[in-house]
């Protein structure tokens, strides 16, 4: 079943998130497929993803408070669990770290760059994507960093789904480091 493969959860980063149930249990008891989750594609050395880490940390926390889990997905081949969990920890990210060297999540969600954000329901086999796009507008292009983000598209998307809105919205495209196919 899809749910078995869904458990690419390697590490729980915050103390409180340890109380979250493993994904397959949620599937069985809580109707996991309709549950909203967030995913963010990351790379430890993409300066664009790293620059957004502080806001991602806050968003992960916010989502968690609303019982929404965030997957921190690292698609690059050759990364180790230790490398990515160190990265997530030192940048204050909140969520479940996932290694995706075979690009199963990349292909499932059709991710293109790091950082790229998703809000979705369903599993890796049949995700229902409610939001795909940038986290915010800190970068208006590669190499074009603003001093501050003004539009927080990912946060808005999370808020919409907390409010029960299941409309599918694609945000402005994410700017970042290309995920190599």
């Amino acid at each position, binding site marked *: 079943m899809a749910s078995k493969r869904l458990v690419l959860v390697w590490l729980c980063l915050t103390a409180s998130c340890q109380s979250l149930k493993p994904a397959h249990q949620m599937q069985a008891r809580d109707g996991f497929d309709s549950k909203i989750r967030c995913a963010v594609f990351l790379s430890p*050395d*993409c*300066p664009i993803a*790293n*620059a*957004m*880490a*502080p*806001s991602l940390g806050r968003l992960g926390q916010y989502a968690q408070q609303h019982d929404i889990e965030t997957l921190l997905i690292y698609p*690059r*081949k*050759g990364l180790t669990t230790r490398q990515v969990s160190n990265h997530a920890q*030192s*940048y204050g990210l909140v969520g479940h770290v996932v290694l995706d060297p075979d690009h199963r999540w990349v292909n499932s969600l059709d991710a293109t760059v790091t950082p790229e954000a998703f809000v979705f329901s369903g599993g890796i086999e049949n995700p229902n994507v409610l939001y795909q796009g940038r986290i915010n*507008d800190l970068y*208006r*292009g*590669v*190499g*074009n*960093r*603003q*001093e*501050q983000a*003004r539009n927080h598209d990912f946060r808005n998307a999370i808020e919409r789904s907390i409010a029960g809105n299941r409309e599918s919205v694609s945000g402005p495209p994410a700017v970042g*480091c*290309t995920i*190599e*196919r």
Partner: protein
Amino acid sequence: MIDPPPPTFEDVRDLLSQNCVACHQQEGPAPFSLTKSTDYQRRSAFIQALIQEDRMPPHLVASERWSDQEKDVVLRWLAAASRDEDSQTVPAPKVPSFRKDRSFRIPEGFVIPKEGGERWHRGDRDVRTFRLAPRADQLLRVQAWRFHSSAPREVESIGLVHDDGTIARYGDLQEPNTPGYEMTGDMGWRPAGMLGVLGVANSTFRIPDGFHFEVPQDHEIDFELRFRPSGIDKPLAATLEAELVPDQQKSRALHLIPLSIRSWRVKAGESGTLEQRWVSPIDIDVPLVSVRAGRRIRGVSLSVDGKRVFDIPDWDPHWQQTWEIPDLRMTKGMQVVATFNVDNSEENPRNPETPPRDIQFGRRTGALGIWLHAAAIDPVDQGTLQQIHRSIFEAQQSEPVETPRQIEQSPKASP
């Protein structure tokens, strides 16, 4: 037709070494190392896109960039290279020689914050001014600077200046518990960058032979730091080293001729040009220039008697530094024009405000400018040159707020 065989690693090694590894190495200013062939191959699509768009290597002045042929060889190598090849080393380019004659440092204790944010000083954010110690023990004739910091990836540029200590001390008192202060680094009529701007690409900076920057005895060196938060808090330690011109050696001091606009404003959506002109009253050499301009400036250029001698068509303050102009000599009576292309429209991808806002900038030493670092050809004129900076500065204080000449709109019909 048969395509030529794709370039081999041997064909691109030196190009990558010169054009990438200078920055992309351990402790370098760039976010990851590109010191192995596989470092390129596993980012191949991304790197190809950046090279095609001329984002990397990031040089602003065309003469510092690689040629189209060189670029093409690297692109073809990237497109053809297989990720499974053995990793080969791309050597770091030779480090320029440097003799450390003096060393200055800032007090430790400031942490570059993990993200930018609203602070008390509106306008220039992510800017901070620091005082270096000790003071100059004698008149220093600086041939080269070298800047080291604990945060090479967060430091965008430093604009050097000297001061007798009174102005920076006042600034420091504003934030007594943390080194530095959150203000721009102008010291009265002496602007930050007067002793050169060191950026990502030139943390070791050699002044062309025969010229030097001068720091008066007992003055301190201060710098305006422009930094870029990187998502993680970074404690800042920084050292500036100076190589001096040997005592017996002849050399001419560089003085500042600021071609600057003290104050300017532009409406939302407008674009146009601003200009500053100056006629040299003496014969001078201008081996170096620096630029002060923000993100609403799309291009800057400099012409002498109608001939363009310096040109940055796509200005990006992130990559600012002091640049060399080879063989620029201006004889008495020659006119130099600094031109700034202003773009406060939505079309300007770097415009910090979307939608654009009406804005106005002002600064005692000039809100926008090209600075000539100049030396008199006749030693008798060196004193005059020193006065020029002051008199330009004083004259500037009564200049009105300027607005760009429109180039995008048709001129209004006059009655």
